[in-house]
């Protein structure tokens, strides 16, 4: 049994090394920018987890929403209540690269991904534009898009009778390291 496992690991390890196409992180950055009249605030998390496989173009990212921080604890708690993180702890994207990416150049390249973005228990198909850049340390991903709260049945909280804007700007940035190293 042990031998079989070792053999399998060696075989698949060899295949994986041969492909060297999977990149992963558990320490990416996700930021959102929120607006209320006369005021904007941001929240961020350093716990973005993601995987990109360049051999089949699959892209999988998720974040534990309870790790988002805005700088004011009470506002963080409000945000978690609004997003119902006890019921829906993750925001997640799963899809694929739908544009060409050349891994043999170190230039920053514009890319598009298409797939399902899910938050607050609601899943919608989205197309997100961003950039990929091959670096010596790994694959650098940057992307941003606008999330409309009502699309995901999120009722914007009122902060002292002032409504938070429906449109939230989301940014992600992560350096994914080769899982084959």
């Amino acid at each position, binding site marked *: 049994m042990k031998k079989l496992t070792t053999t*399998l*690991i060696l075989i*698949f*390890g060899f*295949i*994986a090394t041969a*492909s060297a196409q*999977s990149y*992963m992180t558990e320490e990416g950055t996700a930021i959102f920018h929120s607006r209320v009249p006369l005021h904007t605030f941001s929240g*961020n998390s350093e*716990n973005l*987890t*993601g*995987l990109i*496989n360049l*051999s*089949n173009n*699959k892209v*999988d990212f*998720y974040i*534990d929403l*309870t*790790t988002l*921080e*805005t*700088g*004011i*604890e*009470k*506002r963080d*708690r*409000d945000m978690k*209540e609004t997003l119902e993180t006890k019921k829906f*702890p*993750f925001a*997640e994207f*799963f*899809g*694929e690269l739908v544009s060409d990416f050349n891994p043999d150049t170190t230039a920053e390249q514009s890319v598009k991904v298409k*797939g*399902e973005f899910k938050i607050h228990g609601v899943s919608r198909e989205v197309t997100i534009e961003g950039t990929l850049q091959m670096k010596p340390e790994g694959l650098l991903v940057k992307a941003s898009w606008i999330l409309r709260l009502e699309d995901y049945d999120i009722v914007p*909280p009122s*902060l*002292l009778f002032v409504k938070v804007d429906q449109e939230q700007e989301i940014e992600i940035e992560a350096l994914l390291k080769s*899982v*084959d*190293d």
Partner: protein
Amino acid sequence: MIIRKTTLITLVFLFGSYSLSAQVLERKRAVQDGPVEDIFLAGSIAGLSTVTALPKKNMNSMVMHNFGLVSGGIEDFYGLDGGAAVRLGIDYGVTDKLDIGIGRTGIEDVVDLRAKYVILEQLKSDKVPVQIAIKGDVGISTQKERRFDYTFTERLNYFTSVMVARKFNDKLSLQVSPMVSHFNTVVKEQNNGKLYNTIVGLGIAGRYKLNNRNALAFEYLPVLRNRNPNTKDHVAVSFEIDTGGHVFQLFFMSGRWFTEQHLLARTDTNILDLDFRFGFNINRFFGLGK
């Protein structure tokens, strides 16, 4: 670990029935355990401090306010004509466990400096079932006194307490806090008994959440040792409103003060005789960086 991860991913990619509904990464919660949040909504209820500390670089500015006795009736507009006692204060989170603060009370122009330190945090896993914090407060009466020429030292008063609290569930939190107050100077208005410089008391507090925004809370400060003549145990009952950036506390309280050393030593009204006053605290929370 890396080899196992690689193998798993490779297996999935090679043989997995791979559709847009089948993610590759297992969803794992980032924070498995941690301190419980919001044992109390603010750092104090009416006048009694709670174990709740400000996060690092958060500031709470407070306006604490109460009026005359409700028992004055309509002639005194139930105390609202009686003139307000006000404490204005600012607390700042130096770390997630250490607050420092300063405030000034209009009665006797008392300026107080205070610090609160959380020794132990209650954990969601219940591995640590209670939160424990200590508080120290030094007050100085800056009022110009015509009868006596007080020295700086004679004007000082002190307070310390150990707060032990537990959040039992999302709704109910309770706290007990043994406390000691000390006044360097006590002045007898009448020759009717002994006044004590040092008083030992107990703080008992609770909070019951009605919903996400509102809670009922109470505080009770029985004197355990060295009760001053004609003084009573302070009691307050509060309705709390949490808006996210603000916590409003609307309460009836028997004591006149917002500093615990004075509540122990100087409360002379009995809530059971309907001798209590309306008051409110406004807490405004700011983030001063991450």
